[in-house]
């Protein structure tokens, strides 16, 4: 009961706050308070919308003013030049801004390189281009747009009240959207993109689509906010609308509050807007600006992740014992005789991969049978990892075909391949660093496996955490794991996707002998559950012990194929390894 009450309290407070704020204009309080709170709504909506892409997915944009500005001018131009009713222009403003974002995204998000500062600069450049176009075309033309003659619907007794309620509705809608995104598949995918986009894609997150969706959603909200704000400002100029500091303040607000949390930007926006109004009196305005600057510097230095993460961290430390269910450690069952069918699950035909002048794969043919453990060995640079990367879709093929269960997958994007049941691990573990162990595994279950309910996904994740011996570490961040545990987290993540085909890239490297024994038992147990495994390994003891068949790659070509002991005894194979392999 007590737990329920504690959990419901925030909901009740939020509900009361929403109702109270909705009826505020009826309270006949001085219009200034409506205006002031409207401006808070305005900044909350704008900074929250920024965070949808930039905070959640880490695609940091300096050009949010572009989408806001498109909204402002959509409403300004449509109401004054075409007589469109104001309320109708707001959704149009949203759509136009969203289309612009989707268009930019469709070009930019295809280029893996355009991340980080390059994306930020690109958005900034787009802002300048759009501002200049509006300035020099009849949309504005340089004289500004005066909206005094545009009628405002009487939603509330006063004009300010009407704008207040629109801003309020927008703010609630924005926060609801942010909450929904943060708790949805989309949000989960975006958080994964933030941490490691390539891995997210390999785990089945349709990164391209998700980024465009987040960008369009973010822009749509900014556009609608702009549409409403045009009415509030009344006289629109290009210099005032596309002001550089708009984009910077949005970033500042989001980061101050905590850009990865749906409520973070709202807190930052409220704090900074209030702060900017703290020094409006004529005598202290100039010094006030400097004081605001100092406060912001201090806030960022001492709360680098923002207010909400700081509070969360504090709450976590304060709690005596975390109430979490521990995953049960599933005993690793000794395996029965393997069931290897004659049917090949994976067919690789004439696969080549070129990087500029370098031929990494020079025509590889392979058949992997359903249920087998297929070892892939070869000296450094022989193309093992490249082959894994090609099968999992990380690299596009140069030529050849790859067929999984009869379906051609060689040209599919990585997330499609993941959904078809191919999972992989990374030689150097690449966990999502801002997600707990549980979330890391749950994400892979969500995007990789069949469609399941939230509860089923959680159970599945818990099962594999237990299976890999990570029970008790569910709420730990990857930074809190040692190398051995991280390797096993890689395995748990791959297994949670219930793969038909599991690609293991040197899971044993860096482990001590006991850990290796554990891992070997684990791999056998995985196969016993019905997965086919291709594993790349340097450690020949493990290769010989585990594999049903072994393929040797050399200089991008299949060099030898057969039963492990025979292949390893092949003098040609020994010669390419120069005998080093057995010494290891």
């Amino acid at each position, binding site marked *: 009961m007590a737990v329920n009450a504690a959990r419901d309290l925030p909901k009740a407070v939020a509900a009361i706050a929403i109702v109270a704020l909705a009826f505020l204009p009826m309270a006949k309080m001085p219009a200034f308070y409506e205006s002031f709170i409207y401006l808070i709504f305005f900044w909350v909506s704008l900074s929250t919308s920024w965070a949808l892409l930039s905070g959640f997915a880490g695609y940091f944009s300096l050009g949010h003013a572009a989408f806001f500005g498109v909204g402002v001018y959509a409403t300004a131009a449509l109401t004054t030049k075409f007589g469109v009713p104001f309320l109708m222009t707001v959704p149009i403003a949203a759509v136009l801004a969203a289309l612009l974002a989707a268009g930019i995204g469709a070009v930019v998000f295809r280029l893996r390189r355009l991340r980080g500062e390059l994306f930020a600069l690109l958005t900034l450049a787009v802002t300048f281009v759009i501002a200049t176009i509006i300035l020099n075309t009849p949309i504005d033309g340089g004289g500004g747009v005066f909206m005094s003659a545009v009628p405002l619907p009487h939603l509330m007794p006063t004009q300010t009240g009407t704008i207040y309620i629109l801003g309020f509705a927008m703010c609630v809608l924005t926060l609801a959207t942010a909450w929904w995104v943060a708790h949805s598949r989309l949000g989960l995918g975006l958080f994964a993109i933030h941490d490691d986009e390539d891995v997210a894609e390999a785990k089945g997150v349709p990164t391209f689509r998700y980024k465009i969706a987040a960008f369009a959603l973010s822009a749509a909200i900014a556009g609608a906010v702009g549409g409403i704000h045009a009415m509030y400002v009344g006289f629109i100029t290009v210099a005032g609308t596309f002001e550089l500091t708009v984009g910077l303040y949005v970033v500042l607000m989001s980061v101050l509050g905590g850009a990865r949390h749906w409520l973070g930007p709202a807190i930052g926006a409220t704090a900074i807007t209030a702060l900017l109004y703290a020094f409006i009196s004529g005598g202290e305005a100039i010094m006030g600006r*400097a004081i605001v600057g100092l406060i912001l510097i201090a806030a960022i230095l001492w709360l680098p992740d923002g207010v909400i993460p700081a509070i969360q961290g504090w709450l976590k430390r304060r709690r005596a014992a975390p109430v979490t269910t521990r995953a049960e450690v599933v005993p690793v069952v000794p395996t029965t005789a393997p069931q290897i069918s004659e049917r090949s699950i994976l067919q690789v035909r004439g696969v080549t991969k070129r990087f500029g002048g370098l031929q990494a794969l020079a025509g590889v043919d392979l058949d992997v049978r359903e249920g087998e453990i297929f070892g892939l060995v070869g000296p450094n640079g022989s193309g093992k990892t490249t082959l894994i990367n090609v099968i999992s879709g990380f690299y596009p093929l140069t030529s050849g075909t790859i067929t999984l269960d009869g379906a051609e997958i060689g040209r599919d994007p990585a997330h499609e391949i993941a959904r078809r049941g191919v999972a992989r691990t990374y030689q150097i573990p690449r966990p999502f660093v801002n997600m707990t162990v549980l979330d890391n595994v749950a994400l892979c279950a969500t995007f990789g496996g069949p469609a399941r309910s939230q509860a089923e996904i959680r159970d599945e994740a818990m099962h594999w955490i237990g299976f890999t011996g990570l029970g008790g570490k569910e709420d730990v961040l990857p930074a809190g794991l040692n190398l051995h545990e991280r390797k096993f987290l890689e395995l748990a993540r791959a297994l949670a996707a219930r793969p038909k085909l599991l690609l293991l890239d040197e899971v044993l490297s860096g482990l001590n002998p006991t850990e290796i024994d554990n891992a070997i038992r684990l791999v056998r147990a995985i196969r016993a559950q019905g997965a086919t495994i291709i594993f790349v390994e340097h450690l020949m003891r493990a290769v010989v012990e585990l594999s049903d068949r072994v393929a040797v790659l050399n200089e991008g070509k299949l060099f030898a194929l057969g039963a492990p002991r025979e292949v390893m005894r092949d003098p040609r194979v020994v010669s390419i390894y120069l005998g080093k392999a057995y010494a290891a």
Partner: protein
Amino acid sequence: MPSATLLGQALISGVLAGGMYGLLALGLSLSWGLLRLVNLSHFALAFLAAYLTYELGTTYHVAPWWAAAMIVPVMFLIGIAQHWLFDKFKVNELASLLITFSFAVILEVAIQLYWTADYRRFETHYSTMSIKAGPFYIPVLELALCMVAGVLAWGTWLWLRKTYVGKALRAAAEDADIAAAYGVDHKKLAYLLSGMGAAYAAIAGTFIALIATLAPTQIWAWLGVVFAVVIIGRLGNPLGALLAGMLIGASESIAMAVFEPAWAPVVSFSVLIAILLWDPEWL
């Protein structure tokens, strides 16, 4: 169609005016590329130096180069002090942007408190001198600016490319831990580099005082275009920054000579967008 003289003159003016973009981009590019710190207060420091040059010149009749000689060491120390803060708090790229934004606001206030927000103009006879070359005129001040920028960019480039210090810095920019393992004292070099960045801002500021408008809000006027220059010139590449500055300056100027001048920003930022999408090897 504009005449060849007009186009040639626009090209000369543009390239030389672009020297200012390059000079401002220089310090920014170094700290961004090699220290992963985006220093927005670079512009504020440049304007502080410009106002100091103005003050020394108008009140005490100090020649601009002597003014620069006095201001540069002070700015160098400010740069070091700034880096002390970043170092102490282990500030990352994004936080550095926001902190230096706030710092720039504080400097803007400081400038406004002493010099007011009203426009200032440092009147010297250099500002209108030019050399005649055939049908073209080459403005002397901008030429001097480009030469100074060229020397600084070239010198910094050589220093980074040829010496142990430069190699160490570049190694540290790639991976600070590995560099540390090879005995590179990244921290000391970072302080040196921050000081240099601020010193370059001071030199740019001296020229701003002679060439451009002085008003506190002008701090923000250069930001967009100089960011574009820093990126086009490749982060951490001083010669690239200068060349990119001249490229942007020239493209803006040609655009102003051929089209309606107000369209010029579209040209420079479209160049940036095109280069980002085109993905040339040097980026």
